[in-house]
């Protein structure tokens, strides 16, 4: 497969996953905020959402204050925010368009359909009462797309690149979410049990893991349970370990189980991460240790992304001069 195509597929998948995650985070947060009336708390919550879904600094670079509608607009349809949902979908659509001959037609229809609808509404800002509807639509579009990939694509090279993109994006996002929440619980040490409960509940909800968690643990939001569940549970499909195990397995299959000289570094890195995940006793870590762990993991993700690109020649100058 062409390197350019592999790269486009990888980024298409990342962008679809990103749009879904950001939509879910915003959706959960909007509901939570209905229960809060303290402006300070609200503002802090918004800052966290910005930290997870975009960049707080960039937002402040453009806007002076936290305003609910501005933030929603910034995170959903703003062309100025590189990670806005509509930008993610547009990038994903461009990626799909450039690789259409590799994709199931239905996948293109789903992405293009959403894009066209969005284009139609471009000049009418999303009304607050329609925000949830829009976010749900984004999530469903992503889920439909993933369903098509799962049920229609041959388990070949294009499939693998799509899946690796998705898992890396997801693992990184889960780490980012936990990082923000840990920071929050550190900052507000000595807070009431209700508040702590609320943080970890939020963490579970925004990765869509609440229902799965409840089946294994009583609804007692103990970070000693929540954190291992989201980090090292091998069966929960949004946990960091689950995603990384699957990345390793995918690369393994791509290389038919052989470690060649060109893929050696990638394998080494992936195996090291796996080992680290396995050997760390998450429930035994203090909050600050955990923060260090999560930071390191996000760096790993970045390195994997670079190594992955190098291994498969994904990083190529657009017009190479030879």
């Amino acid at each position, binding site marked *: 497969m*062409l390197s*350019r195509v592999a790269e486009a597929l990888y980024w298409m998948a990342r962008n679809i996953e990103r749009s879904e995650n950001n939509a879910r985070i915003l959706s959960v947060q909007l509901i939570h905020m209905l229960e809060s009336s303290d402006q300070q708390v609200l503002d802090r919550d918004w800052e966290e959402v910005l930290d997870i879904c975009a960049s707080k600094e960039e937002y402040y670079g453009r806007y002076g204050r936290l305003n609910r509608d501005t933030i929603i607009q910034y995170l959903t349809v703003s062309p100025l925010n590189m990670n806005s949902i509509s930008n993610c979908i547009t990038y994903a659509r461009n990626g799909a368009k*450039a690789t259409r*001959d590799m994709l199931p037609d239905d996948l*293109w229809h789903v992405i293009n359909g959403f894009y*066209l609808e969005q284009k139609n509404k471009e000049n009418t800002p999303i009304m607050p009462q329609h925000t949830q509807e829009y976010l749900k639509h984004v999530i469903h579009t992503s889920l439909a797309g993933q369903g098509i990939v799962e049920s229609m694509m041959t388990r070949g090279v294009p499939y693998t690149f799509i899946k690796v993109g998705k898992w890396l994006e997801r693992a990184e996002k889960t780490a980012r979410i936990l990082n923000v929440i840990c920071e929050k619980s550190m900052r507000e040490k000595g807070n009431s049990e209700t508040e702590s409960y609320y943080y970890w509940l939020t963490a579970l909800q925004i990765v869509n893991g609440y229902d799965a968690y409840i089946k294994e643990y009583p609804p007692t939001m103990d970070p000693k349970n929540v954190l291992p569940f989201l980090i090292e549970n091998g069966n929960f499909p949004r946990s960091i370990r689950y995603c990384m195990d699957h990345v390793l397995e995918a690369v393994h299959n791509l290389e038919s189980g052989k470690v060649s000289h060109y893929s050696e570094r990638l394998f080494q890195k992936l195996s090291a991460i796996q080992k680290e995940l396995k050997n760390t006793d998450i429930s035994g870590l203090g909050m600050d240790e955990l923060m260090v762990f999560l930071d390191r993991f996000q760096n790993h993700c970045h390195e994997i992304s670079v190594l992955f690109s190098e291994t498969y020649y994904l990083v190529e100058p*657009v017009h190479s001069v030879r």
Partner: protein
Amino acid sequence: MLKNYQTGMFFDEMMETDGKPKQHYKYFYDLVSDFSKDELREKHDTAQLSFLRQGITFTVYNDTGGMERTMPFDFVPVIIPDKQWTKIERGMKQRMKALNCFLEDIYNRQEIVNDGIIPEVLIRHNPYYYKQVTGVEIPLNNHIFLAGIDLIRDENGDYLVLEDNLRNPSGMSYVFQNRYVMRQVYPELFFQHSIQTLEHQFKDLHGALVSHVPANSMNPEAPTAVLLTPGMYNSAYYDHVFLAQQIGIELVEGRDLVVEDNKVYMKTIRGLKRIDIIYRRIDDDFLDPESFRPDSTLGVKGLMRAYHKGNVAILNGIGNGIADDKAMYAYVPDMIRYYLDEDPILSNVNTYFLRDPEQLEYVLENIETLVVKNVSASGGYDMLIGPHAREEEINEFRKKIVETPSQYIAQPAIKLSRAPAYQQGRFYPCHVDLRVFVMNGSSTHVVPGGLSRVALKEGSLVVNSSQGGGGKDTWILSEGDDVHA
């Protein structure tokens, strides 16, 4: 439904002058007459939406950049009885053969010029004549892998060739998508007709493509072929995606290819992979910055060296533009006689050369009845349709013609045939033409049907999609079906 439909002075594909449908349209006519107004409207909308959702778009360029648009689809098909089609098919094959002989001759000994059939000046000053490819040996000596020949019908219903497209003819995807959407949206129309299927065409297209194995292929039994596109911002990108997908070859851009040691490779996730055949949809000028335009970023540096060495086949041939030039067009019947010693099966539209003083004088005097075209423009640009033009336009063209007479040709304004189109809730007559696709390799195939293009703007003669034209499905009835269909 078609009660107030007037055929007027034009040949109509579907209706007789007395308001009755032609024999081979009768079934279709009766079926459609049973549709209610709402049904028609709903089906029409479904069809248009289907094109949009599938992203079957072309890009229209304007001041603010490119815009994606779908070609409007009209559900009234152009139906052609088998017998008529057989003649078209024969005519197409004959024309292709002669045009290919011409290209082979022009890039080698130029006998047709030496024998005085074609004036030398038409070659020498032709912007599409590429000296760079003189004498290059190419697989099968075939310059035309895929051609799109535009046909029109005059007021007597006779088919005439309007234009040969031997470079990068687009629209093939529409032929298939029109049929696909038609089957989805109007399945009932298909029950009583036996229509020649399009299903096998890709096998033929693939066969024709891989029959162009270059002399030095490492893998002549299973050569690696790719489709080279300028990328997703090109107006015909969908066409490229569709063809690559259907033929089962990789869709590549110039930046995916590299020439090393005079061989062409594509950059894959496993390193470089050798390529044998390139079906390119990039214009000659942009193919290789080393040999043509140095500023081109679409092409591949060194491609021409690989081509000259016989390490890669490039389709369609480089320099084909000399043969589909609007001026060279007039000589195609002569080519047929000269190379094949046959009479042309399909006629040309009479063409006046304005560099000839007598013809120029005639054209200037009768410009109101003529169509004037710039020989190097396409897509309906820089063109005057005399009978429809305003006084200022005519004067402007007179001036242009007198300034550079050799830049223009003129043709009588043919009373282009019409067919009913259904738009905005009613049927009205619109001018149509037909682009027929011919594929050449070790054998020649004509796609049964082709892209019927329709000038949807009432009274307009321009069928180009960039100028508001639309598409129709084209049905070739199977043999023996003429009577009851």
